[in-house]
């Protein structure tokens, strides 16, 4: 048993992609070892921006030996009339390196076949590794890759050295045009000399001596602990930011951590701006005071030792100061102009080619908001319309327009400037609300008005994209259409915004003069997405959603609620649920092509008919009322109470009797039953 070590020395890899590559490497090696049945203790993956290493401990010297049975051609075509091997058999023997005496004939389910027992395995690990390693890079799935020499190899960035050891022995392999050796390099600045690694187990230790912490978990913990340490010392709080920490971990080989500060005056900038300057550009950790206010301290990881803080720290501070200075310049200039007088400028801001200006868009959003207002109460109309005209004006500010870095702060800047110009806090919040949610998992609008504007904005975006030729059915969603629609669903669900989705979409489509075929295609697509959405987010079966869609209501919130409650029923009592569905399916099948007709009590022959009709007449209004009151559980309960009567009806009454009058009456009764169920949803669409 020996240890195995492979290290690819690279030029700095993109920080997030390292995680993915490391994971792929682990899987590839695991698969290789398992497939070849080479016993091992553990696969360890280490990485820094400049290296990825695979350390396998206690790897067996040889693979296991196994015996397996292989099946050849059917016996009847294996031998000719004289009993000599046919081509089919000799081909089989040849391909497996067998002799005639190695095979035997045995029956299996399909008949008699030629078979052989083969011994496999026993090859040395060295031999297998030597064959496997050269093809390693080809096994990786890379999003963006490059060539760097004439070996033809592709990787995320150039590979500069390869270290490959099995025990103390260098494996004679070539990866990416580089011959493997037993040397690595230390930290680029602190210990950039060649290091000879005599055996795999010394790898981490030797690197650590040269200022490289190759274990990402250790780097992460070190940075985290130092961060918290500094915070504790200075009475500050770091809000855990896993994404930033994960990135920073892969921006350094040595986890040095230092603190810095910026002049207090920049704290007057909106927090979001200051934090963006720190986090987005500089990958600094922003800190808060114990009272929650943003502090003027920041923490940064440096790829060097902390004793150099005095050399390095002031430079980092200077860079941040320049960024904040830029932001302050923008804000200072921007605040000279009242937000209201920017509205006019929106006429010059193009929304989308051929679709007019941002101002035009707002006019459309206004009409959509009016539509939404009609079905939602407690909307403060004055605030709504004021905010509507101001919500996009931050697009004309320097901060958003010219400050490349700060463009992501759309909405936030609108809110912050509104506050700084003495606007009502609620109004400011609505301005911010209107961009929410910006990405999956983002916060949702706080105000109902903000929710309305957000929905109107997003639905207008969808049709604008359609108008400019975006395709709905693509799986990759390059324009974020699916994401936009999901955002609407999310707002509706949480903020309980009520409206007829088809009506609103139609209005939005008309305002942009979208062709009717495109609109129809959109609706079809949108309903399908609702199925996906509820399946993804709530685990509701797509066919349950499908059964609710189009059943009496186009109100998204109601559809979602009905689907939820129905799903609950399915979860709680699968058997009964399925029986109800089966009953409705049966009714559905019998009723193919049947026209509605009044039920005549005189034509009832059997008690089961009479009984069902009587109960239905009592229950139907109750279902209706419950649905009107949006008591979906109740409505479903009433429907479920019909089940025994329906079951008995099906058991005892034959619908398709020869007597046409009788038959028509029974069909009419069944029709009424089905219509009653359809008040809730179309059960026949559910799959059982």
């Amino acid at each position: 048993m020996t240890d195995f070590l492979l290290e690819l020395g690279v030029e700095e890899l993109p920080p997030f992609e390292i995680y993915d590559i490391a994971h792929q490497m682990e899987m590839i090696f695991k698969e290789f070892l398992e497939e070849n049945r080479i016993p091992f203790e553990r696969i360890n993956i280490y990485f820094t921006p400049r290296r990825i290493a695979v350390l396998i401990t206690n790897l067996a010297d040889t693979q296991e030996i196994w015996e397996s049975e292989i099946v050849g051609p059917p016996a009847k075509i294996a031998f000719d009339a004289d009993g000599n091997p046919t081509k089919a058999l000799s081909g089989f023997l040849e391909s497996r390196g067998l002799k005639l005496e190695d095979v035997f004939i045995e029956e299996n389910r399909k008949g008699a076949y030629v078979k052989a027992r083969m011994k496999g395995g026993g090859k040395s690990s060295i031999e297998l590794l030597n064959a496997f390693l050269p093809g390693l890079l080809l096994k990786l799935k890379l999003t963006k890759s490059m060539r760097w020499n004439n070996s033809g190899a592709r990787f995320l960035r150039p590979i500069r050295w390869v270290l490959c050891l099995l025990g103390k022995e260098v494996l004679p392999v070539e990866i990416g045009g580089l011959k493997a050796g037993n040397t690595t390099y230390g930290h680029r600045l602190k210990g950039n000399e060649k290091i000879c690694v005599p055996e795999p187990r010394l790898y981490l230790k030797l690197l650590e001596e040269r200022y490289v912490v190759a274990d990402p978990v250790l780097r992460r913990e070190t940075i985290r602990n130092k961060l918290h340490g500094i915070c504790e010392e200075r009475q500050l709080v770091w809000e855990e930011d896993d994404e930033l920490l994960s990135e920073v971990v892969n921006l350094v080989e040595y986890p040095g951590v230092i603190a810095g500060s910026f002049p207090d005056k920049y704290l007057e900038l909106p927090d979001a701006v200051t934090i963006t300057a720190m986090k987005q550009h500089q990958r600094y950790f922003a800190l808060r005071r114990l009272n929650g206010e943003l502090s003027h301290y920041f923490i940064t990881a440096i790829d060097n030792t902390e004793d150099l803080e005095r050399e390095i720290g002031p430079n980092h501070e200077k860079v941040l100061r320049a960024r904040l200075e830029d932001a302050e310049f923008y804000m200072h200039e921007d605040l000279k102009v009242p937000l209201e007088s920017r509205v006019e400028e929106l006429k010059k801001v193009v929304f989308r080619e051929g679709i007019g200006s941002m101002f035009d868009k707002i006019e459309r959003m206004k009409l959509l908001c009016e539509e939404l207002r009609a079905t939602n109460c407690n909307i403060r109309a004055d605030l709504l319309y004021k905010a509507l005209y101001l919500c996009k004006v931050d697009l004309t500010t320097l901060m958003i327009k010219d400050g490349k870095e700060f463009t992501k702060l759309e909405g936030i800047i609108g809110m912050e400037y509104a506050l700084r110009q003495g606007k009502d806090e609620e109004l400011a919040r609505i301005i911010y609300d209107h961009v929410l949610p910006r990405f999956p998992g983002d916060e949702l609008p706080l105000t109902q008005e903000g929710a309305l504007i957000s929905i109107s904005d997003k639905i207008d975006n969808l049709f604008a994209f359609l108008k400019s030729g975006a395709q709905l059915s693509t799986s990759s969603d390059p324009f974020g259409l699916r994401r936009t629609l999901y955002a609407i669903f999310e707002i509706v669900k949480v903020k309980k915004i009520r409206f007829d989705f088809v009506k609103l979409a139609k209005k939005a489509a008309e305002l942009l003069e979208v062709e009717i075929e495109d609109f129809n295609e959109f609706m079809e697509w949108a309903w399908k997405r609702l199925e996906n959405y509820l399946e993804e987010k709530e685990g509701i079966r797509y066919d349950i959603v499908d059964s609710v869609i189009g059943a009496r209501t186009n109100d998204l919130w109601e559809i979602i609620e009905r689907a939820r409650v129905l799903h609950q029923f399915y979860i709680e009592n699968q058997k009964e649920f399925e029986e109800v569905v089966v009953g409705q399916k049966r009714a559905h099948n019998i009723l193919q092509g049947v026209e509605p007709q009044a039920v005549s009590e005189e034509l009832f022959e059997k008690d089961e008919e009479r009984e069902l009709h009587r109960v239905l007449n009592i229950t139907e209004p109750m279902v209706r009322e419950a649905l009107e009151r949006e008591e979906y559980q109740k409505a479903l309960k009433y429907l479920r109470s019909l089940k025994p009567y329906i079951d008995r009806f099906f058991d005892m009454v034959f619908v398709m009797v020869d007597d046409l009058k009788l038959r028509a009456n029974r069909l009419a009764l069944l029709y009424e039953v089905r219509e009653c169920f359809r008040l809730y949803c179309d059960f026949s669409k559910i799959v059982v």
Partner: protein
Amino acid sequence: MLTFQDLILKLSRYYADIRCVIGQPYNSEVGAGTFNPLTFLRSLGKKPWKVAYVEITRRPKDSRYAENPNRVQQYHQFQVILKPPPENPQEIYLNSLKYVGIDIEKHDVRFVEDDWESPTLGAWGLGWEVWLDGLEITQFTYFQQVGGIDLEVVPVELTYGLERIAMYIQNVDSIFDLQWAPGVTWGDIYRRFEYEYSVYNYEKSDVKLLTELFRRFEKDAESLLKEGILYPGYDFVIKMSHIFNLLDARGAISASERQAYILKVQRLASLAARIYLEAEGD
């Protein structure tokens, strides 16, 4: 004290010593050293090419009336092309920093992922921005495509921000305070230039004239290139790009027109690239 001119001289010496041709800035306004034919055209094809030169770089949108200590509408890049790429380009680069007197061992030097792209030149590459104590001082790129053409031999492009590096070395807080030569500051040379060009870029440029010029340069570029007259044709492509930047700074280009302008430049830049390659025979 290492002056601004010393920095240029030292970098030139360093790259001359590793056998780069020391080129000169292009005599037409460019937004980056990449536009210089010494980079744009010579990156194409398989022929080895090593060059280093200063580029005077115009960014009309960064006009700040000489009031911002960190932003100016014209600054200097030091541009290096190494084709084919050496085995140790990062080391070559880091040694150049040492050569100009930066004690990198005592600092925080990092290569932070930043994939570069120039839509007007139909060019992109993979690489980094190089940070020195958090300050972006260099763009380091392995070109993958130039003029819409996939590159078989991948050039390394190094673009040093000379002012930033000099500010770091001289430890000054404003570009204008940089010592260009003993007793002469950057501001002495460029303060009025910066102010007046800010006025021009933001207030005085003649949108009508520029729009017309763009149209006519486009026509000329196209007819020249179609006749296979490469350099004059490509010059007009460069001019188109600069005029686009001027119009953009003036706010005269709407978001929708923007893309159309870029595509016009890109199309002709790609044409120039193809013509260059045809003549080079590879």
